[in-house]
């Protein structure tokens, strides 16, 4: 079985500052890794994912995440945040079959003007 740990439940950051949201996972098998974003009163939307290949993956709105196999981490970063990035962010892992996904407990990112 897999599990996901998001080390920070809340991250306040000033607008235009950089941010890193941490995610570690445990698994004995190969996995796919995901970051989802949830805006207030909405469902989760895919932000980015790592399947294979380059360990650095990027989203269209400036976020990036790096898969580190030795540290079993998939931290999410953005060099300069905007007010509109305020949301809940979830890290997730699935095995290659896709039968089940495991989500972290979420990190609430608040961007302060």
């Amino acid at each position, binding site marked *: 079985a897999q599990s996901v740990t998001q080390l920070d439940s809340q991250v306040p950051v000033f607008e235009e500052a950089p941010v890193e949201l941490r995610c570690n996972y445990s698994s004995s098998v190969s996995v796919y890794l995901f970051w*989802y974003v949830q805006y207030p009163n*909405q469902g989760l939307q895919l932000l980015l994912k790592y399947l294979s290949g380059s360990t650095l993956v990027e989203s269209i709105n400036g976020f990036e995440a790096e898969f580190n196999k030795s540290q079993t981490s998939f931290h999410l970063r953005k060099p300069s945040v905007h007010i509109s990035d305020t949301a809940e962010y979830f890290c997730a892992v699935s095995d290659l079959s896709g039968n089940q996904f495991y989500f972290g407990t979420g990190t609430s990112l608040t961007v302060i003007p």
Partner: protein
Amino acid sequence: NAGVTQTPKFRILKIGQSMTLQCTQDMNHNYMYWYRQDPGMGLKLIYYSVGAGITDKGEVPNGYNVSRSTTEDFPLRLELAAPSQTSVYFCASSPGRASGNTIYFGEGSWLTVV
């Protein structure tokens, strides 16, 4: 693009009542899931299905039932509602490995049991 559609969006139930949360997807996905989201607890998998006629329990199945008679529909049944089932419920679907296991979520159903 309808995607994953859940109904109702909001519902208040009395203890002991039963209800069904409806979920339908129009993407022809084989995999479907029901999650519940509680504050500070992330998402917990209730049930999932890998295709029509096949369902299986997730992490927190007690108090719930599902069926999957068609590829499109995956209703979640709450029997004898309890206050502990007050939560936000999300239905989701995935095409599986064909698209890297990406999950697509519905908008959520807010359920309060009083």
